[in-house]
């Protein structure tokens, strides 16, 4: 692999800003990497070689002319295939939208382009973003770079595999029930779900509008902070956009976490979690303590209702989004997604409102918990990536549907919209990445980044690369 494909985005931008590397060299290296690996990974549904190379030459002229735009200038990125891109098919992982060509870019895509980022392609995903495997019946499964017989997780599967395998330096995912954090954990990269409302969703195909969140996927925490700097803004075109002040999300990098309090919920997160993942989290707690943080147990009983609340809201809203598809084109939708949408259509209005009222109680308990801690620590996924063909997984003598285990631990943070990051924290005995998630108070994304950065700086888990 070309060494330009294995460095971080920040390292690449430093080389570009000092004229040691040209954007065209960087983009060419990544296009070459896509061409030589994507038959094994299936990360991309569309590769934009010509436009990316053309954009890289424009970036080069700008930089050589003294018009350097900042750390994303000349950086090759990928977009999950539900971000609207002008003139480029945006199929949302479906057969139904195979010919859908938007006329303008999503707000966040425009912002990244303005910052100088270069889009190298559109990325594989679970159909309609309604599933956590990225096993797509229309495009084939996205494959995990650490073991191509295994799933990437989802729904932003291609966004994770492409960054993990060095096909692009950063990508965009979306997270409604864990769709950024799950594949980030299973593919050994960093996935950041910002506070709900931080980043515009205008031009991003919806799934469940009271929980849908846009975020970056990168190889390092610093890279995620740099991406968020370019992405975050108030947007009147998104009814969920928060008019919160913008800030520099890199400002707390390197500050350490001495004096911060990290809470470890005692309920919910460890029942359906493997011994290996539990041990990885125990080791992580030791690291946080060694860095000067106080790590304390915390009780949040309402967590046991996470699946009832998030499942009812997500499926009902998704059924609303896809009502006409379900009525008129049901059998053009993959079996698993059709089943979930149908379940959503069968909930009553009373069920939906009950879940929203439960959400109020849930948020009250989380708010109370966050008055005593700065960060909540939990595993991201309870196991390493399952095989693509796995139907069930046995954990501690209990048989679980393999796919149901994927979003179990990530959904709580979508109910309350807190900023949450998944970072690598170990490997299973099979050599598969393990991830942990750190959640902070609303709009304290920078504290989440600070904590993840402190851990990353003293551990090596994120420095490993898959041999693909």
């Amino acid at each position: 692999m070309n060494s330009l494909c294995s460095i971080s985005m920040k390292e690449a931008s430093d080389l570009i800003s000092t004229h040691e590397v040209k954007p065209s060299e960087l983009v060419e290296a990544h296009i070459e990497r896509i061409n030589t690996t994507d038959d094994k990974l299936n990360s991309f549904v569309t590769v934009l070689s010509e436009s990316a190379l053309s954009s890289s030459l424009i970036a080069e002229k700008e930089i050589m002319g003294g018009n350097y735009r900042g750390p994303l200038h000349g950086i090759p990125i990928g977009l999950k295939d539900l971000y609207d891109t002008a003139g480029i098919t945006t199929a949302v992982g479906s057969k139904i939208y195979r010919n859908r060509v938007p006329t303008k870019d999503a707000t966040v895509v425009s912002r990244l382009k303005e910052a100088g980022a270069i889009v190298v392609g559109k990325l594989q995903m679970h159909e309609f973003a309604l599933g956590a495997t990225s096993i797509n019946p229309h495009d084939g499964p996205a494959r995990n770079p650490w073991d191509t017989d295994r799933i990437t997780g989802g729904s932003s599967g291609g966004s994770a595999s492409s960054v993990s395998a060095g096909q692009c330096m950063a990508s965009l995912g979306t997270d409604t029930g864990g769709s950024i954090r799950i594949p980030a954990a299973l593919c050994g990269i960093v996935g950041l779900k910002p506070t709900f409302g931080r980043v515009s969703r205008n031009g991003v195909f919806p799934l469940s509008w009271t929980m849908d969140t846009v975020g970056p996927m990168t190889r390092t925490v610093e890279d995620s902070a740099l991406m968020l700097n370019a992405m975050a803004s108030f947007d009147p075109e998104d009814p969920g956009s928060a008019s919160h002040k913008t800030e520099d999300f890199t400002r707390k990098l390197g500050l350490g976490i001495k004096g911060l309090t990290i809470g470890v919920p005692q309920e919910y997160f460890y029942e359906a979690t493997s011994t290996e993942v539990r041990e990885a989290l125990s080791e992580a707690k030791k690291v946080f303590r060694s860095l000067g943080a106080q790590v304390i147990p915390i009780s949040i009983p309402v967590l046991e209702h996470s699946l009832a609340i998030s499942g009812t809201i997500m499926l009902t809203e998704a059924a609303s989004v896809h009502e006409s598809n379900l009525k008129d084109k049901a059998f053009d939708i993959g079996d698993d997604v059709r089943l979930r949408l149908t379940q959503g259509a069968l909930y009553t209005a009373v069920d939906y409102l009950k879940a929203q009222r439960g959400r109020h109680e849930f948020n009250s308990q989380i708010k109370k918990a966050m008055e005593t801690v700065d960060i909540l620590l939990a595993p991201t996924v309870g196991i390493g990536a399952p095989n693509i063909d796995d139907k069930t997984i046995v954990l501690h003598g209990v048989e679980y549907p393999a796919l149901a285990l994927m979003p179990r631990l990530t959904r709580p943070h979508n109910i309350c919209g807190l900023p949450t990051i998944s970072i690598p924290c170990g490997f299973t005995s099979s050599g598969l990445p393990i991830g942990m998630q750190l959640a902070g108070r609303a709009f304290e994304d920078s504290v989440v980044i600070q904590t993840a950065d402190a851990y990353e700086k003293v551990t090596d888990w994120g420095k490993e690369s898959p041999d693909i």
Partner: protein
Amino acid sequence: MTEMESNIRLLAKAKRITISEEDLKLLISQMETATKELEKLEAIISEDVPLFMPPLTSKLQSLDGS
């Protein structure tokens, strides 16, 4: 035919949704589980929880006191 199966068939017909027999079996099981979970959830919803949800963003912003 169980009550759940009957309800699903009626709802699907009313909503003009076609459900295959294979999907129906899975849906019966999933909706039975979901109904039980929602019943448990109901038990923790206190009487003072508002019946009307304010806009989500203002609720979230109140989490950090702003």
